[in-house]
């Protein structure tokens, strides 16, 4: 294959020149977020957990652009350091559901019959419960903390991916090229994963982006409720919770982490939109 590759100049470059604007903007936000999350100390002016009793509850100023909280911690530094945890949440809370949901959905959608009926009941059971309530229930059984949160989200979240993929595979498996694959004597697994899945995975990838934004919100919600990241860890939800008693007097403690959530969520959503556009035109 490599020798063939080297013989022909690809005509696909022109398509890459016209990336949709949402993807460029969203991608820029995400890349910046990832860089900040890997090297927070480079960008943060202070240590996120050092108390400064000389600067309690100070408003935004030149020394503290986002002010300080009730322990005198620099809010900007905490927002920056929170990127590490929150980007981690975005990825780890979604990658396992994406992975397993895709596999299960592909198998179920292809098999149909009893497997599909059974799967339909599981989907019903999961989506009847409000997602957050279900996750909170599982976390309270397992105990608070990030790893248990990933487990809880994973147990519930795969269903949504599986449902999307199953529906797509169900459509794809009836198309001629799937029959052609069977007529060529390919195994079922080969047809599912080599032939059908590449055609079916687009909506799941797009949903994945949205889901990462939702995961950050969820992580922050659980952090806020004390079930996710534990104080004094710098995490946006925890920070918002920290500031809730000072909303009237020191709004900056909660508002800036909130804006960080909005910005990151926007990054994921725009990327998802842009990706949907790119993958759609490719068909």
């Amino acid at each position: 294959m490599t020798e063939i590759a080297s013989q022909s100049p690809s005509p696909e470059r022109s398509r890459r020149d016209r990336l949709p604007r949402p993807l460029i903007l969203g991608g820029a936000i995400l890349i910046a977020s990832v860089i900040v999350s890997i090297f927070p100390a480079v960008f943060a002016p202070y240590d996120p957990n050092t108390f400064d009793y000389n600067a309690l509850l100070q408003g935004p100023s030149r020394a503290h652009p986002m002010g300080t909280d009730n322990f005198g911690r620099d809010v900007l530094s905490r927002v920056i350091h929170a990127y590490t945890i929150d980007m981690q949440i975005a990825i780890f809370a979604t990658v396992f559901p994406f992975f397993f949901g895709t596999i299960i959905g592909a198998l179920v959608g292809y098999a149909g019959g009893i497997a599909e009926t059974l799967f339909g009941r599981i989907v019903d059971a999961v989506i009847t419960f409000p997602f957050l309530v279900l996750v909170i229930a599982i976390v309270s059984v397992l105990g608070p903390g990030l790893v248990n949160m990933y487990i809880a989200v994973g147990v519930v979240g795969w269903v949504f991916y599986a449902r999307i993929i199953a529906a797509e595979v169900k459509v794809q498996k009836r198309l001629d090229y799937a029959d052609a694959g069977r007529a060529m004597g390919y195994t079922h697994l080969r047809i599912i994963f080599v032939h059908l899945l590449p055609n079916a995975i687009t909506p799941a990838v797009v949903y994945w982006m949205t889901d990462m934004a939702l995961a950050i919100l969820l992580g922050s919600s659980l952090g806020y409720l004390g079930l996710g990241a534990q104080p004094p860890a710098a995490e946006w939800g925890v920070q918002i919770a920290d500031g809730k008693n000072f909303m009237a007097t020191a709004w900056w403690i909660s508002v800036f982490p909130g804006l960080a959530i909005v910005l990151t969520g926007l990054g994921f959503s725009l990327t998802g939109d842009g990706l949907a556009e790119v993958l759609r035109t490719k068909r």
Partner: protein
Amino acid sequence: MTAAALEVSNLTASFGGGRLTAVNDISFTVRPGEVLGLVGESGSGKSVTLRSIMRLLPASCSVSGRVNWQGQDILTMTDKQLRAVRGGQISMIFQEPTTALNPVLPVFTQIEENLKAHTDLDRAGRAARARDLMDLVGIPDAARRLREYPHQFSGGMRQRVMIAIALAGNPKLLLADEPTTALDVTIQDQILKLILDLRDELSMGVVLVTHDLGVVAATCDRMAVMYAGRIVETGTVAEVFAQPNHAYTRGLLGSVPHAGTERSMLLSIEGTPPALNRIPPGCAFNPRCDFATDPCRAQVPALQDLSPNRSVACFNRDALVAAGSPLG
């Protein structure tokens, strides 16, 4: 005359728990190197026949009968045996090359998939074989085109790619489900010629499903005419065209315009083929038949052998023969 390569006997395929019978008790044989045309209107069961030979029908369809392939019944094979036959010994090409190719995989990958499944060539071997196959089906600049995706090919070229994939496993029999219907006339001709050339080169048997009698005349050795799920007439193409023995065949032949003869009105067959849940009693064709008599409305005529290659299912064959060929 060599032994049959594929022997279909009493094949019946029905849907909806036996209420809708799409293919009803049909039998035919295909010999090595022979092109058999399966002819009929839409809904006569041609495609279902092909698909039941390959066991491609959904599980909701019940299939009975025997499909004998080299001493084994395809209908009772295990999945593993079936996989070796499919694509390796019997290949299939489809009506719509646009949908029969996977839109997101380059052509090379799709040819390679078949080579992986049915040969033990290594990577370099598969690449070389893929280029040979592209040459074989007449796609120029194979090395470059192998990297391209189906949407970069024209309709005729896609069908060539489809044929290349189907041939990768060196099949002994090619099932072609209206391979030229979606193509325009000049391309049709090229593809049919390609299939015939390949038949000669690789001595494969071919089952060609079509509703186009012109295609049959140009390509097939023998033909079987289907109506409402049954075979109503078989014979060599020359015999059937010279003297149709079934009123339906006669109607089909009469509805095709002919150049070089005196201008005459085109015959048409009144009415439409019956829906599967409303097949009339007796001969399914009797409401549309000019020759129908009382027995036709009461009893299903059996397919009777006239000679080793010729059979017909009609009570009023004598009247038909007396009326002569509509091609006259």
